[in-house]
């Protein structure tokens, strides 16, 4: 956006239709406020008569009432149930169409639809909300094509606030009431008409079209005074200095239990929130599973399914966990993830909470101003409060069809698929990265790469649900579609010149195998290499022949142990930590890499720490939490991180107490 050059003009109320005409002449459909279902909603407008003239709104926690304003202004309200994300990040977006035919599986991304829209009556807080979502939807490795296209195709006509609702607190969040950046045109409504100024080249073009008389000084002053008055009425209900730090340090505050008693976990707050962007992907198919479609729809961290992960475990089972995730995300971890607050102070979540929970009140109790924050549970990361500027470019997702070569049945429920491809991007995968594997009619699970070959990739998959079961059931010469590779892999180089410790539990060995390959390919670069492998039973051991071969080598050690076994098993029985909890090697010379069940990793991490392995040299992978793989769905948040975007590989130093913390 550029600073306005054209003089502010004045548009008489009676001639407001000229703005409609100008916007329509610009080939745009107009979305703006109108009365429906006893509320002021944003919907398509064809005529200024549809504006909520003479109406205003009274809000309170859990209440919203449309009432006459007593004057015939059209924008005499604060914000309503609709937010602009309905048009920039719609509730339902088709993602892919997949087909299985003679040639194999083919997945096509659905082209983004981007109608030319003009948003009329966007408030200062809503402008900031749009900017915040722009950053959130572009924070992943690709960015979201649909959202970007819709934003690029939209023109924003802002409206300075003339009134504040009881639930407004933009002054505290620093997003209003005065319109700052992000608009193309900015209007201020006075009794007899509108002061109009351009805030971008596109805005200037429209303003030029209108050919307005310049606004008189008293008119521009009246407009400014109006905004100042709104600011005065609001005050500063939620002091935000140091709020992110205070909140981050209050994860165990007793108030979380109190609010959970009232909270319905109905998700209304997140759905009316103009910045909340979380989604879930659903699949549909024909009766034969030959053609399938995927689409994403608004979801919420308040729904139980949102925290469900493979094996029906759930990392946010309690309502308390979900409320804490929402509030801490909005006001604290959002800074770490996107470099700004996630709240703009519009107050929608307060008015539209069916039981009137007021976040302002909760914040003041949980993270009261002026109180020194306790120790931080994790270091600030990765944006650390720096909003990206300019926004990163957006790339379309690539769906690559690959063919199954060998199928190795590793255990009763686990197979390794050897996939052939000449796709350079896939072949460029790094150890510890993962791909999204798609078959028509099935959910799309993230699968870690278990071997990177010059001519393809191996995926080792455990059947833990219908989608993975379908993958495990694939035969040689079948095809599937891959996206990726995604994620930050193992920092192999970081271990150069040092001892290497590898701890694997069950299927966790799969993402570690490419690391082992990399180390062995350049063995002299590393010191002693020690592998500690755990499995549930002898029958659950992965890559048995290969591991036995490694065990036969003089230049590395492999010890393994199983949880339980019958008499036929002559190896060790117990837990993986028993393999090294009495070891005498010097952990300070070692870099450790771990993957396995989280409890196993916690126990192993404790033992490694005792042996002197530093937290910043202890690397774990948390891939089990991922859903979309590209940092847009919000499912895999752990404290300040998106696992798919910032990980899946993390050091314990990065994770801090987020590692293994229940309910986070």
């Amino acid at each position, binding site marked *: 956006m550029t600073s306005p050059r054209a003089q502010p003009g004045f548009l008489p109320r009676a001639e407001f239709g000229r703005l409609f005409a100008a916007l329509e002449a610009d080939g745009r459909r107009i979305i703006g406020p109108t009365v429906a279902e006893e509320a002021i909603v944003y919907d398509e407008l064809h005529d200024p008569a549809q504006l909520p003239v003479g109406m205003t709104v009274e809000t309170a926690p859990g209440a919203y009432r449309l009432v006459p304003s007593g004057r015939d202004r059209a924008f005499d309200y604060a914000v309503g149930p609709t937010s602009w994300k309905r048009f920039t990040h719609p509730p339902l977006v088709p993602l892919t169409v997949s087909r299985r035919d003679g040639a194999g599986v083919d997945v096509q991304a659905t082209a983004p639809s981007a109608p030319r829209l003009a948003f009329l009556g966007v408030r200062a807080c809503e402008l900031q909300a749009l900017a915040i979502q722009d950053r959130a939807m572009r924070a992943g490795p690709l960015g979201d094509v649909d959202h970007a296209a819709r934003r690029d195709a939209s023109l924003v006509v802002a409206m300075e606030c003339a009134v504040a609702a009881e639930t407004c607190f933009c002054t505290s969040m620093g997003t209003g009431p005065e319109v700052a950046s992000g608009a193309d045109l900015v209007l201020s409504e006075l009794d007899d008409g509108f002061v109009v100024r351009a805030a971008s080249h596109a805005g200037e073009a429209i303003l030029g079209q209108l050919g307005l008389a310049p606004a008189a000084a008293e008119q521009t002053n009246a407009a400014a005074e109006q905004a100042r008055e709104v600011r005065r009425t609001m005050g500063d209900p939620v002091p935000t200095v140091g709020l992110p730090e205070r909140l981050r340090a209050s994860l165990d505050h007793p108030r979380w239990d109190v609010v959970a008693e009232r909270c319905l976990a109905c998700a209304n707050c997140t759905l009316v929130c103009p910045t909340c962007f979380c989604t879930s992907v659903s699949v549909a198919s024909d009766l034969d599973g030959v053609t399938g479609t995927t689409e994403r729809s608004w979801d919420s961290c308040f729904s139980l399914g949102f925290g469900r992960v493979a*094996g029906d475990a759930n990392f946010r089972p309690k309502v308390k966990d979900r409320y804490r995730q929402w509030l801490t995300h909005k006001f604290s971890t959002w800074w770490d993830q996107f470099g700004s607050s996630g709240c703009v102070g519009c107050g929608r979540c307060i008015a539209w909470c069916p039981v009137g929970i007021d976040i302002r009140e909760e914040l003041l109790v949980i993270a009261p101003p002026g109180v020194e924050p306790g120790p931080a549970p994790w270091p600030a990361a990765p944006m650390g409060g720096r909003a990206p500027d300019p926004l990163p470019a957006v790339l379309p997702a690539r769906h690559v069809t690959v063919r199954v070569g060998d199928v190795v049945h590793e255990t009763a429920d686990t197979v390794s698929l050897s996939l052939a491809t000449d796709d350079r991007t896939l072949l460029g995968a790094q150890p510890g990265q993962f791909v999204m594997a798609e078959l028509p009619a099935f959910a799309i699970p993230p699968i870690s790469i278990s071997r990177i070959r010059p001519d393809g990739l191996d995926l080792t998959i455990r059947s833990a649900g219908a989608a993975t079961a379908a993958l495990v059931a694939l035969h040689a010469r079948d095809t599937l579609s891959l996206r990726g590779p995604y994620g930050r892999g193992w920092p192999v180089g970081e271990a150069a010149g040092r001892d290497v410790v590898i701890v694997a539990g069950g299927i966790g060995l799969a993402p570690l195998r490419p690391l082992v390959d990399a180390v062995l390919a350049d063995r002299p670069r590393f010191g002693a290499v020690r592998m500690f492998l755990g499995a549930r039973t002898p029958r659950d051991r992965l890559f048995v022949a290969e591991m036995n071969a490694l065990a036969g080598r003089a230049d590395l050690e492999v010890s393994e142990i199983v949880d339980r076994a019958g008499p036929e098993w002559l190896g060790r029985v117990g837990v993986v930590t*028993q393999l090294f909890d009495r070891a005498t090697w010097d952990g300070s010379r070692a870099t450790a890499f771990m993957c396995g069940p989280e409890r196993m990793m916690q126990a192993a991490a404790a033992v490694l720490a005792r042996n002197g392995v530093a937290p910043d040299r202890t690397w774990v992978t948390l891939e089990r939490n991922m859903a979309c793989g590209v940092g847009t769905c919000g499912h895999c948040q752990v404290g300040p991180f998106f696992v798919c975007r910032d990980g899946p590989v993390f050091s314990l130093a990065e994770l801090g107490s987020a590692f293994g913390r229940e309910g986070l």
Partner: protein
Amino acid sequence: MPRDSRESATVGWLPSSMAPAVAARLVELGESRSFPAGTVVIREGGPCDSLGLITRGRIALRMQVPGGADRTLITADEGDLYGWSALLSDATATASGVAVVDTQALVFERGRLLDAMAADCALASAIQAWVLAAVARRLQATRLQLLDLYRSGLEP
């Protein structure tokens, strides 16, 4: 199947925290025995008449689980103690110990050990601390195994 970590083979079998005099006294009290693979060292429910420290090899501690199957709950490996029931008054073995490979152990005959402990408080407390540490480690392992059992109950 893979060999065990060579590191553990070089572990000083007695805890480094143990006073040299006490350690020396223990080595003198103990008697090095070898159990060929398959030897039943102690039998579940039978008398537990000696405490052992494995210096080489492996003893599988097994129990009859419902259904009559014989399951290995845990193995005692180089540096591990077994048969600590010998220090308890009823001295009954709670699991069977079977050498799954050729195994060497430093074995302390119950009567001798208890007499020596009765005679030497320093020795007694050192041994109790030693055994307690071993028990604590075993309980930790068992706890993790239990958690894993419950977790796997969730899985389809």
